[in-house]
């Protein structure tokens, strides 16, 4: 079993929809949680960064962490075609030197 599980999709939704992307994990030591966005044939880039449990909002994006359930989510409101990309969750324990990534979910927003 992988330390981080993420549904690879693909996920296709109409423009303007609310998108929910999720990851589960097994390592209770994970403290830092991130979402990276990767456009086709590009490197991943950091989208959201949260510490421990709770919510964090940035424009149309909201990241949620539920450590009791070992479950994290990324919500995208008013989705746009430019949001079409692969979304990777990533996490790490405090003081660790490497990120553990999920498999990535390929998302397509249809105009």
């Amino acid at each position, binding site marked *: 079993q992988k330390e*981080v599980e*993420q549904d*690879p999709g693909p996920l296709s939704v109409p423009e303007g929809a609310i998108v929910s992307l999720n990851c589960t994990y097994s390592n209770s030591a994970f403290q*830092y949680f991130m979402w990276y966005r990767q456009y086709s*044939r*590009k*490197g*991943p*880039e*950091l989208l959201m*960064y949260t510490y421990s449990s709770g919510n964090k909002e940035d424009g149309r994006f909201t990241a949620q962490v539920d450590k009791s359930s070992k479950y994290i989510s990324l919500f995208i409101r008013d989705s746009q075609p430019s949001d079409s990309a692969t979304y*990777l969750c*990533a996490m*790490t324990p*405090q*003081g*660790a*030197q*490497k*990120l*553990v*990534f*999920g*498999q*990535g979910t390929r998302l397509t927003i249809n105009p």
Partner: protein
Amino acid sequence: GAGVSQSPSNKVTEKGKDVELRCDPISGHTALYWYRQSLGQGLEFLIYFQGNSAPDKSGLPSDRFSAERTGGSVSTLTIQRTQQEDSAVYLCASTSRRGGVGELFFGEGSRLTVL
């Protein structure tokens, strides 16, 4: 340059040949990472450098894989006697953080195809 630079962007090789992949991190970034991305597998950690030292090389799949970093800057990932299962995108990332990971800045990757 402003970002992480990787070369070659694409490499096609025959099974059994050796390949070298190069990474130029962001200037001043002390930490450098290599990850491998296979279809549907997400990013798989290979090795981490702090300066020229590699405190964690636990992700290297076999002794055919090696990496080095010189001058606290450029890194080279070498794959000897390539196999078809080595086909993947090899991503390099750098960061300025010493304690903990922080934000990783990725290059666009080197796409390796082993025939």
